[in-house]
């Protein structure tokens, strides 16, 4: 009767979450410390109950308890343990519980790591998180209960979707959700600050590490999902501008803008209303993403039978949470002060310009994602908005932003001089232009897109080096090592993240510009030369996996007589769902991937196969890892360690 306990724990969590949300807020008008004191214990109890409920559901997966309807629909007793445990977030109901469980993890983290915040502020913060939790638990209990039982229980489950049976499934959703849901902390900080009328430098300083933490998770989560799609889907794409992907990308973009505007607010106590609005937007876009994914309003998600009541519920929840936040914003934001002075030409201004760019880029992604819906809602027909649109509009908007990314770190705070920056960046510009011409000449083809892409990448890189050189030059004495020590993690993290973006741009540009695709047919024993590599098709081996059977191709790849790799793409049949999966095989090295996937067995014998050469494709994800590491580095900066304050 474990599942019932899980269900009760969730109901109890709802009750506690209501207390966590209501009591501290009730204490606000009269500054009632007794009511504030409820916040932390209630938050902890609520979180533990939700996590308990989650563990119980996952135990049902572990124990193959098919009396639980959700387990019966998303798992199978033959499924390897690792995937059984991950199957909990493989369907709608479980992934909603997972959402709340991640919120619980963040709530617990706040109760433990934000102890030094003033009681009043911390209490409102936890109250806001409690109210968010209330909404989601209600949603689960009323529309998507994962603990629902079926009698008689089926003999075995319907299995996890074979595409999801991959290590990517174990790590991608947790990272992504940690990022998504993590913006709820920044949101709660913003609301608490608005309620409290304490939008100031300390607020910005408190918020920064939490925002960065969520951003790091989201960065890594999106990157991992992209890499997973790359090898799993069998056609070597890594980003599709699909509505669901956009739903995770928009909070990332706004989160990036938020990180930069928090810097301005922390330094100059300025643009506080704007920063708080971005914090609200970041979490709102996470919620909007949840709505888009679950309601079926866009052609991306579940093809059939999405329950309209779910969509209505989330929409209502959106109206309450976001609408409420924006009303509060409209009431309180006008009274925040101006902050300190800075010049029109200064790092502050550049950061804000970057904000305009990132905000617009998010707007473009949102517009493109929702436009088919807008057109349809106005009865003007059906259109599709896909990669050709986003590749054009998004990139065109980002290019000036990336140019400014090279300028920003060079600019002085408060007051910068254009001639001074120009003289510092002269050589950086020269080097980037030359490199952006040199690399294509080595690759044998130059196009405007390739040139612009590489120029941007080298521009950011050389600007990072210019920053380091400048910084070193500003320190009068000491050895290089001593000088480097004075840099501080926040600064290093920023440079590393910027450098990571440059690496990412190199990867994207090289793949887009130089990838090669070959559709060929091969007989067993045949050797073909493709793109300078010899592919010898040794034949097909039958393979038996834990819950599938497969045909595995054996391809020896060599170049000029030297062995390169043995590639073994598979065609798998998962009998429970009767699904056929293509499993690609990839030879990876820093400058190119060789990607091979099996097509169909031909009637006249032999196989159709697809071979891709993807130059520098790994740099895409390597760049994201650098960005994530940069984020982590900035969080270790001493100034974010909280001191007891009142």
């Amino acid at each position, binding site marked *: 009767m474990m599942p019932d306990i899980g269900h009760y724990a969730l109901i109890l969590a709802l009750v506690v979450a209501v207390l966590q949300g209501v009591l501290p807020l009730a204490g606000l008008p009269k500054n009632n410390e007794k009511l504030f004191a409820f916040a932390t214990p209630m938050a902890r109890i609520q979180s533990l109950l939700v996590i308990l409920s989650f563990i119980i559901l996952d135990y049902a997966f572990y124990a193959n308890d098919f009396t639980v309807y959700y387990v019966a629909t998303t798992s199978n007793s033959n499924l390897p343990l690792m995937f059984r445990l991950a199957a909990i977030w493989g369907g709608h109901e479980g992934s909603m519980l997972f959402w709340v469980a991640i919120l619980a993890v963040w709530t617990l983290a706040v109760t433990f790591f934000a102890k030094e915040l003033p009681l009043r502020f911390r209490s409102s913060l936890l109250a806001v998180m409690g109210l968010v939790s209330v909404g989601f638990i209600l949603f689960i209990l009323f529309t998507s209960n994962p603990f629902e039982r079926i009698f008689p229980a089926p003999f075995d489950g319907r299995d996890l979707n074979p595409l999801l049976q991959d290590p990517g499934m174990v790590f991608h959703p947790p990272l992504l959700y940690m990022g998504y849901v993590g913006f709820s902390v920044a949101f709660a900080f913003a609301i608490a600050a608005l309620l409290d009328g304490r939008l100031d430098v300390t607020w910005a300083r408190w918020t920064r590490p939490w925002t960065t933490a969520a951003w790091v998770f989201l960065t890594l989560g999106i990157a991992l999902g992209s890499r997973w799609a790359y090898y799993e889907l069998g056609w070597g794409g890594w980003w599709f501008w699909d509505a669901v992907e956009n739903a995770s990308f928009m909070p990332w973009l706004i989160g990036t803008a938020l990180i930069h505007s928090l810097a301005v607010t922390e330094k100059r106590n300025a643009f506080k209303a704007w920063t708080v609005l971005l914090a609200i937007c970041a979490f709102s876009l996470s919620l909007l993403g949840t709505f888009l994914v679950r309601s079926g309003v*866009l052609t991306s998600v579940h093809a059939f039978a999405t329950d309209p009541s779910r969509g209505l519920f989330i929409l209502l929840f959106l109206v309450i949470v976001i609408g409420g936040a924006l009303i509060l914003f409209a009431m309180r934001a006008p009274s925040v002060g101006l902050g300190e002075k800075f010049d029109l030409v200064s790092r502050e201004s550049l950061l804000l310009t970057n904000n305009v760019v990132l905000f617009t880029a998010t707007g473009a992604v949102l517009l493109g994602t929702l436009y088919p819906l807008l057109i349809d809602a106005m009865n003007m027909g059906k259109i599709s908005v896909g990669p050709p649109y986003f590749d054009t509009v998004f990139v065109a908007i980002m290019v000036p932003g990336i140019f400014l990314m090279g300028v920003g770190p060079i600019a002085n705070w408060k007051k910068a001089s254009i001639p001074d920056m120009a003289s510092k960046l002269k050589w950086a510009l020269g080097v980037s232009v030359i490199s952006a011409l040199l690399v294509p000449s080595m690759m044998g083809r130059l196009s405007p897109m390739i040139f612009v892409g590489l120029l941007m990448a080298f521009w950011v890189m050389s600007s990072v080096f210019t920053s380091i050189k400048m910084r070193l030059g500003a320190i009068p004495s000491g050895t290089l090592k001593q000088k480097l020590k004075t840099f501080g993690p926040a600064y290093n993290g920023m440079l590393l993240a910027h450098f990571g973006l440059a690496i990412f741009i190199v990867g994207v540009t090289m793949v887009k510009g130089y990838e090669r695709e070959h559709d060929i047919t091969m007989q067993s024993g045949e050797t073909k030369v493709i793109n300078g590599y010899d592919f010898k098709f040794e034949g097909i081996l039958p393979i038996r996996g834990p819950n599938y059977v497969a045909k595995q191709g054996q391809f020896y790849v060599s170049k000029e007589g030297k062995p390169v790799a043995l590639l073994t793409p598979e065609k798998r049949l998962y009998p429970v769902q009767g699904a056929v999966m293509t499993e690609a095989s990839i030879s990876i090295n820093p400058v190119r991937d060789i990607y091979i996937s099996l097509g169909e067995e031909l009637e006249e014998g032999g196989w159709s196969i697809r071979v891709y050469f993807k130059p520098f494709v790994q740099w895409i994800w390597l760049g994201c890892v650098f960005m994530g590491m940069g984020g982590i580095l900035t969080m270790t900066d001493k100034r974010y360690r909280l001191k007891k304050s009142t």
Partner: protein
Amino acid sequence: MKLKFLLPLVLFFVLVGFLLKGLFLDPREVPSPLIGKPAPAFEAPVLGDPSKTFSTADMKGKVWLLNTWASWCVACREEHPLLVEMLAHDIPLYGLAYKDVEQDALDVLDKMGNPYIITANDADGTIGIDYGVYGVPETYVIDKAGIIRYKQIGPITPESLRNIILPLLKELDA
């Protein structure tokens, strides 16, 4: 309260309005651009009797329905009984066997009844492409001048028959 601080709220509510509307729309249904345009002309062998052909030219001056279907299509089986019933009510239903093995299609008609006056055989699916078929079953209502007046995407339901197709046929026949 300064108005500019209300702007995000206003934009948000505009967005909510669209999302609310969107909940009641089906994003997967693709309206045909052929409505109001002449039905693409074709001439195809008759299913079960390849020596004869069916031609859209023969349909000039008549109001008729073209129903695309296939033996491998599960949803077609769903609407089939309703189609058989329609024939009993003298509704001029013509079939287009879309990308089917002839014998398989004939077996279905044997087993479930033949609701079609004539079924044309579109074995390679090229007629389907001309009509913009993207998932069988799809049904076209074509008027006397050979103009497509309505396209039912997916199975015909008793509701769509009663509320849309029958009134339209009445209007076109008049």
